């Protein structure tokens, strides 16, 4: 007889074991898929690890991919902690990229010290504003934020395409004949390229540093401020928050805006650190926004764990881009991300319940709901 019982307290060792086990479980499951489709799993995994982490320059490229993942991961963590399901990080990242590249083009003759902070602020504001739309709808008309935030992803993608491919917008390069025939965005000035810091052969982009700062800020907000406390109460029990007189509606909008600001910063960093031009196709192919959900869930919504997990999954994304071809079919990265998330969800069961084989049910006081930090 297998018995599943609720744990009174979360087992601490499992908080590390579950993410590690999830990665191993996903590796095993994906190997089965690879075998069925006639690929050698060991060779594929070897290429994946090599392309993501060990090849020369791979780690630096991985950190570039990890930056937007870190920020969209924080975006998901900030919202999910309050049980607000912002699935719109993808679109908020696009808007951040639109805002940051717009201000970067406008300030093209200014020094780096002016342009770069302006790009950061623009990314934060445009991302927050886009996220505030589903936030306001959720707070004031009780409209399901999962669907509205997701629908806005498609709209944001189309907006980007419009700006570059189907209009003579401010973002589009119309200076030469070729650029008019083959649409592309205006490149930003050299001063608008974000600086990076080389430590022991590994290049750390400015966006990653800002992301780490953002993680610290998110942690401070949730552990050290009244705002964060109230948001946590709302997340744990909406009824309790209501009776305590917490203004739920404003908090919903504020948390959505905070979440969108992180994702928008991710978009700004894509422009400043990496692309230096508004590139609708490249940004849409990367699908960093959806991957951020995986990052946040695997990190169990802990901002500092998000940093570590985003580097791991950044390696996966980076290897996916660089290896794509006949021996490494497209779609493998998303499949792996999904499998990791499935395993993490199954592992949540172990964190919250204990599984006993045989024996009688434990008698004594009935276990009550322990403090839930995870997503499951």
């Amino acid at each position, binding site marked *: 007889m297998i018995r599943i019982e*609720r744990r009174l307290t979360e087992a601490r060792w499992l908080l590390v074991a579950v993410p590690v086990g999830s990665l191993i479980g996903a590796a095993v499951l994906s190997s089965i*898929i690879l075998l069925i489709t006639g690929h050698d799993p060991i060779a594929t995994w070897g290429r994946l690890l090599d392309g993501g982490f060990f090849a020369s320059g791979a780690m630096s490229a991985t950190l570039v991919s990890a930056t937007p993942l870190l920020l969209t991961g924080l975006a998901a963590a900030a919202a999910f902690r309050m049980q607000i399901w912002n699935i719109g990080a993808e679109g908020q990242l696009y808007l951040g990229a639109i805002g940051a590249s717009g201000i970067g083009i406008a300030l093209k003759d200014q020094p780096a010290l002016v342009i770069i902070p302006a790009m950061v602020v623009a990314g934060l504001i445009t991302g927050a504003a886009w996220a505030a739309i589903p936030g306001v709808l959720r707070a004031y008309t009780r409209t*399901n934020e*999962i669907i509205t935030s997701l629908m806005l992803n498609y709209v944001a993608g189309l907006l980007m395409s419009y700006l570059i491919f189907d209009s003579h917008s401010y973002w589009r390069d119309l200076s030469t004949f070729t650029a008019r025939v083959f649409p592309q965005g205006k490149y930003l000035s050299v001063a608008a390229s974000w600086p990076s810091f080389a430590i022991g052969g590994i290049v750390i982009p400015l966006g990653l540093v800002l992301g780490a700062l953002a993680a610290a800020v998110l942690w401070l907000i949730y552990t050290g401020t009244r705002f964060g406390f109230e948001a946590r109460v709302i997340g744990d029990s909406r009824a309790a928050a209501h009776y305590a007189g917490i203004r739920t509606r404003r908090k919903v909008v504020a948390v959505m805006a905070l979440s969108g600001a992180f994702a928008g910063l991710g978009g700004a960093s894509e422009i400043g650190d990496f692309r230096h031009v508004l590139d609708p196709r490249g940004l849409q192919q990367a699908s960093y926004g959806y991957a951020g959900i995986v990052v946040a869930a695997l990190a169990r919504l802990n901002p500092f764990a998000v940093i570590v997990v985003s580097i791991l999954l950044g390696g996966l994304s980076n290897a996916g881009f660089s290896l794509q071809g006949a021996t490494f079919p497209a779609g493998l990265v998303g499949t792996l991300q*999904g499998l990791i998330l499935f395993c993490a969800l199954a592992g949540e069961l172990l964190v919250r319940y204990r599984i006993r084989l045989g024996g009688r049910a434990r008698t004594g006081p009935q276990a009550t709901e322990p403090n839930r930090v995870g997503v499951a």
Partner: protein
Amino acid sequence: MINDNILIVIAAYAISYGTPLLFAALGELLAERSGVLNLGVEGMMLIGAVSGFWGVQTIGGPSWLSLLAAIVVAALAAAATALIHAFLTISLRASQIVSGLALTIFAGATGLSSYIGHVANLGGKPARHEFDAINVLGLGNAPVIGPILLHQNALTYVSWVLVVLTLFYLYRTRPGLHLRAVGESPGTADAMGVNVTLYRYVHVLIGGALAGIGGAFFSLAITPGWLDGMTSGAGWIAIALVIFAFWRPELALVGAYLFGAFSSLAFTLQARQVHLPPEVFASLPYLMTIVVLVLVSTGWARRRLGAPASLGVPYVREER
């Protein structure tokens, strides 16, 4: 010719674009009626699209047999995908929201559906067979109703039968009554001797199968062929449709054709030289989904009447 009237053209396209939405929404409706929210519809539809297209390319025989087999393959593949969600949420009590999102990431445009399409090398090839419009009773050219109702493909007619069957099942049969009980109050249903776990598994799987058929409609009827992420958000619109329909099959039909009309509007107006950027038309279905959801949600009391009371809540007998 009266049948070239723009309203008639839009209405005819609305039904054909609405059909995959109707299949997926009916499936999601059944799953949600059992108390399980499945946000993986988009992923399951994409699995249906790719496996259905694979089926029609590889299974020989006459056209009708090949297409029928393809639909079965699509339904089974998507049901197998739904099984993951069923296992995680029903047996392991995982969060239905996160598990459904995981399903869409796993199976979606950058996941398994894309992997299968690339491994089987399906991209950029014409379909060997496709669902053609059937001229019912030779009345396809009859004024007004001809092109709208009597010149659709077989799956559209199947979907109408399905709406009637679902209505009958939900409100006129004992298993349908049990299903509603499981969604409203699983504890009570359990006490009555209804197997809550079984009901939930079965309806999540049916939901997957119907989403798969909806997905195959894209690759075998709307744009025969296979493209990465070809459903482009239809699965999410189907989830919104269930809310819009207050969890009622007959309203899902109305909603599906309404959203079909938004999709076809883009298409028809562009063909008629209405000069607006293509993105404006393309974003119409998404924006209208938001608008319609807001309108439905503001009638808060009405929404409460529709939603199954235990939607999203895992059922654990020991903790009831």
